[in-house]
């Protein structure tokens, strides 16, 4: 079902707030994986604020949907999303990266309320998500498992082991999303270690592939709805994104994989985010 005007407005407003949160957390933390946080934040926003069947007042509810952020370095986006969704206060994130904080560069499921899996070592998340989806089947639970991967992460062989299993077991209760921002630490994916033709590879591994614009809430919604309706083959949503999205001086810039912002940069970043959302409001909200 297409997004209503109210939903669309709510989701973009939420993403706008979260982009500013990401900048703030980066500043509090003294540095973060801000580029990949900004590329994935719209995906996290629509999942946490529209699709995930969860209850922040009962974070360990057994029948909840699960989400595995396999690209765990995007904790800078994930943790604010969990905070805004009501798992803890945004103020708590001021401890980010500090001594004994529950929040570090990569999320720890034993310490972060609402986090379903400790991730950060790339190539691990999808296997855990496959295990969760299989486990739900064994237990007769009608829940969904979402897994978000990075595109550079697809260099890891274990990702393909997990994809093989997802297709083999016809895990239609698993929704895999790849944040295709086209950059990794050392440069563009296709320069460092090409993943293309990614869609063809995924299809050859037995998945159905839905390419979407990963910053367009309507497109993301359409892709997720398709994945939720999978009957035979599990679906991979190939979300085409821009690393650093929303902050003009970070967009598509390799060095902003990880960085810190001082007061001046923070102000510039906030201004850039506001500017982008003014344009979005004029366009999609019209």
């Amino acid at each position, binding site marked *: 079902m297409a997004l209503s005007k109210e939903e669309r407005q709510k989701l973009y407003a939420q993403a706008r707030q979260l982009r500013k949160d990401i900048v703030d957390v980066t500043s509090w933390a003294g540095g973060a994986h801000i580029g990949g946080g900004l590329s994935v934040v719209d995906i996290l926003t629509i999942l946490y604020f529209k699709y995930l069947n969860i209850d922040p007042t009962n974070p360990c509810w*057994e029948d909840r949907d699960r989400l595995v952020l396999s690209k765990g370095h995007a904790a800078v986006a994930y943790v604010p999303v969990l905070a805004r969704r009501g798992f803890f206060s945004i103020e708590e994130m001021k401890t980010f990266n500090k001594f004994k904080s529950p929040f570090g560069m990569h999320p720890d499921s034993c310490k972060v309320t609402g986090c379903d899996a400790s991730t950060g070592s790339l190539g*691990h998340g999808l*296997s855990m998500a496959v*295990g969760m989806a299989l486990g739900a089947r*064994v237990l007769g639970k009608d829940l969904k498992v979402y897994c978000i991967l990075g595109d550079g992460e697809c260099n890891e062989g274990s990702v393909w082991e997990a994809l093989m*299993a997802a297709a083999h077991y016809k895990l239609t209760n698993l929704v895999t999303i790849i944040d295709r921002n086209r950059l990794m630490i050392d440069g563009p994916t296709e320069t460092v270690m090409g993943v293309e033709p990614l869609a063809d590879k995924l299809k050859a591994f037995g998945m159905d592939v839905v390419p979407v614009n990963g910053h367009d809430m309507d497109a993301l919604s359409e892709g997720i709805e398709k994945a939720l309706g999978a009957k035979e083959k599990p679906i991979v949503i190939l979300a085409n994104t821009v690393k650093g999205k929303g902050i003009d001086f970070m967009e598509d810039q390799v060095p902003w994989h990880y960085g810190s912002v001082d007061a001046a940069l923070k102000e510039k970043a906030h201004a850039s985010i506001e500017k982008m959302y003014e344009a979005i409001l004029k366009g999609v909200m019209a």
Partner: protein
Amino acid sequence: MSDGTGTTWTCYDAATMTAREIYGRVLAEMGKTNPKIVGLSADLAKSTSIAFFEKAHADRFFNVGIAEQNLMGVAAGMAKMGLIPFASTFAVFASMRAAEQVRTDICYQNLPVKIIATHGGISFGAAGTTHHCTEDIAIMRSFANMTVIVPADGTETANAVRACVDIPGPVYIRIGRGFEPPYYDSEDYGFKIGKAHTVRDGSDLAVITCGIGVLQSVEAARTLEEADGLSVRVVNMHTVKPLDRDAIMKAVLDTRRIITVEEHNVLSGLGSAVADVIAESGKGCAFRKLGLPDTYSEVGYPEDLYAHYKLDANGIVDTIREVMKIEFEEDEDWEDEV
């Protein structure tokens, strides 16, 4: 015995069944009363004998193919859902191919995944070094939250597999290929995870051992009693982590001469764990570690390999005789040694 699911074997059966076969049958039996148990393997269901569980509970068994990293990640995910996964593959793949998944997905999240690794040590003799595993005890005991058990034989494997379900976190149980002769003739000897079993008392020297070392050490102790009049204690340290420090210190204080015997590199295995306890205690004693001397194993039948690395009764006898020759202060005054 014929339906592939029972544990109603006799002592005679236990003596002729391999440890992994007993494991598979025990797990299949446990699956009948515990619906949370799920089984996983990586194209080694038959070889590790988890196939007995598969046969009895096909809807709760998953073969992920030759993909050990995925095996451990999937097991972690299933444990996250509240299940108790038993994942079986060869020790070499469980501990090294999938080491990071075991460490980060399973141990870091403290999940109740039970890894039953077969073909440990040099038990896969003729398969050669690629399929031997003389590093896993070191690797697994270095992962926080992990419990590490090396049963003496099939009977102890049955006890360990049953007991490990009650441990809320991850457990690594290392067994051999399974043609090793058994030591125990009954399951009723008070097996408890983390509590060593003194299988033979003695006052001149103590052997602290696990796995195949238990039977071989007892045979060595019998020989030495008859031939040399020595009183040798044999401590089955089936749980390498958490270690039974009291049993070690009791052996040190009672005998002042310790050897360790393990089917593992002498670096960082049981012997090193025992050495840590002794060193930290400040109580000196004569000490030797028997195991593979930091080398890759030769190819051959297991019995030839055990003899070569002095892990059989003869080798243990030789080592004990050497250690008995070490001049060592045996007075009762410990204070001058601290």
